[in-house]
């Protein structure tokens, strides 16, 4: 493979990886904090994407969709948490999987009933619809904008987690919820906000992905698979792990599509297996 192509695939992999990061950071936060296995996380990505589709159809503007997509997913996450999921926190993982899987199916079928089973187009905002020349390569302007947006969100999230009181409570909660509770912090409220933020981020990933991949009712379950891989590779509960895991998986996938195209998808899982062999708790996880 030529050097230029390698460089370009690397850049492309970073672009894919940043979307994977957005998709999985909420999942890792929720699992890290509550040890809660959320199989409905892909649904929030789905809700974000379909809200983006509906809003862009109604208003003709993707910019409105960027506001409403994450909001809709965050509200759905909050309602699900308050009405259903909080009752399952003390249950075994099997029960949590069953409940969240049922939720995912209900949302997926509802989307089919409301829209239809066919894929839909979400236009790229006209301001970002062109291509950018990087040396002799071209790269879609919208993809570059997504990388930039994801990087900004990563910085903001890092700041919120590392430099705020709430972030400290969240990080402490992922170590020991009992201890945090004894310190007088309302753990239920922390859980609720974690769901809200995690859901909003998954919705944002769905919204940003919609112009890249369109929307269709089964995109949630596909996204969930990748999100779990990223979380496992990065280390469960680690924000930095989600970022590194997303980038690693994105780059591996992109490189493999030139080196071994038919195995590109397989290489995602190959990379996961390799990381688990070398670091069983993931890149940034603690055993």
């Amino acid at each position, binding site marked *: 493979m030529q050097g230029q192509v390698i460089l370009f695939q690397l850049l492309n992999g970073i672009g894919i990886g940043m979307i994977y990061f957005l998709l999985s950071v909420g999942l890792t936060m929720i699992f890290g904090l509550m040890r809660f296995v959320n199989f409905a996380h892909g649904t929030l990505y789905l809700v974000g994407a379909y809200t983006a589709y509906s809003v862009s159809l109604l208003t003709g503007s993707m910019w409105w969709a960027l506001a409403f997509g994450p909001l809709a997913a965050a509200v759905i996450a909050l309602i699900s948490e308050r009405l259903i999921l909080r009752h399952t926190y003390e249950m075994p993982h099997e029960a949590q999987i069953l409940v969240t899987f049922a939720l995912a199916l209900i949302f997926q079928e509802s989307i089919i009933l409301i829209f239809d089973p*066919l894929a839909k*187009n979400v236009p790229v905002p006209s301001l970002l619809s062109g291509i950018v020349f990087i040396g002799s390569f071209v790269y879609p302007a919208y993809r570059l904008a997504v990388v930039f947006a994801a990087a900004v969100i990563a910085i903001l999230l890092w700041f919120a987690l590392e430099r705020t009181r709430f972030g400290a409570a969240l990080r402490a909660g992922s170590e020991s919820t009992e201890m945090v509770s004894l310190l007088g912090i309302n753990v239920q409220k922390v859980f609720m906000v974690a769901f809200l933020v995690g859901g909003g981020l998954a919705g944002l990933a769905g919204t940003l992905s919609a112009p890249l991949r369109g929307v269709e009712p089964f995109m949630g379950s596909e996204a969930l698979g990748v999100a779990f891989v990223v979380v496992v590779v990065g280390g469960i509960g680690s924000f930095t792990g989600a970022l590194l895991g997303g980038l690693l998986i994105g780059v591996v996938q992109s490189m493999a599509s030139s080196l071994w195209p*038919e195995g590109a998808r397989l290489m995602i899982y190959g990379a996961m297996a390799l990381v688990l062999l070398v670091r069983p708790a993931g890149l940034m996880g603690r055993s």
Partner: protein
Amino acid sequence: MNISRRTALLGGASLLASPMIARAQTNKVEVVGIYSLSGTFANVGDLLNKGTVMAFDHYKTAAGKQINYTLLDDQGDAGRAVRRVQEAMGQGVRHVVGCTNSAIALAVAKEVHARGGIYIHMAGADEATGSQCNKSSFRWPGASYTAIRATLEPFMQANPAAKRWYTITGQYVFGESLLTNAKAVMQEKGLTNLGNSYHALSEREYSGYITAAMATNPDVLAVLNFGNQTVDVVRQAVSFGLKRNVKIVVPWCTGLDQYQAWGSDIVEGVYFGTNYWHGVESPGNRVLSEVVRAKTNNATNYLQACGWAVAQMFVESANKAGSLDVPDLTRAMEGLTYEGPTGTETVRAADHQVIKNYYLMRGKARSAMRDADDFAEILQATKAFMSPEQAGCKMA
């Protein structure tokens, strides 16, 4: 007979519950449709089934008997499809229509043949009327050979300077079949095949494959797949600016529903091959379009047309035979000529393939669209079919 998705599912459930679905009722004929209403191909199966339901709703009777249609959900699994068909045929059903993909059709075709039924389907793999043809099975659409010949040959004639080709192919039976046929045409025409990127069926991100294709500097990118993956590959190829200096050809496209999924900005200037187009002027298509418009207030898409076509073939053959017995139906079907969705269509007796038009289309600019569904123009309609001997059909 107005069957909603929910009613159809309930019907499927009641089939499990009732041991006597096909209790002999002399004034009725039992027909089952085998489609994927859940699983990976549910988005395709749902619309195919709707087309079949609309056709039976329209025709109402076959050979003077009321049609009683029941949906069987195979959940996208060939093994489950066979089991569901076995159960239905065990209860006396002899008439089966539909499929959601080639693997399911090939498996069901063997089962229906072994149990003495008749099966009309819409599989895309060449084998269905080739090496795996049988006396009981009939196929409506043109298969991968037809798609490639009817699309690539006229495209190559119109674009003689486009000599360097790159292909992106879904790695499974149908994709392989498209690739084999495409390579054969390229070789015949002396064109350069720069390379091919296979991708897995579960893939959703194609930027890496597109980058690999761009690095070879091709004149043409051929996308060899079907369904949502085709939609994703073309969308991402266009977003990478490929249309500036590369022609994109999609030999197997489902037409309207995929054009809607892309939008006119992506469709413009791209070449497509398709089995059906709602704008075709023909008596059969007029009937179909009116029924679909009345039921859905929308133009007909390929999946609805496919579901309709297999049901229409059953009704036409039964009416010609004046009987619902399988041997009579099979005899009537062989050589049957009728006004179908693409014009006058004929069932070739030697391999049970329907001989019909396949269309090469090119996407229009938004400004050239006469209405919201007028995404593309037909450049050529071709009946390009492998001979039964070429296909290796030895009728069992």
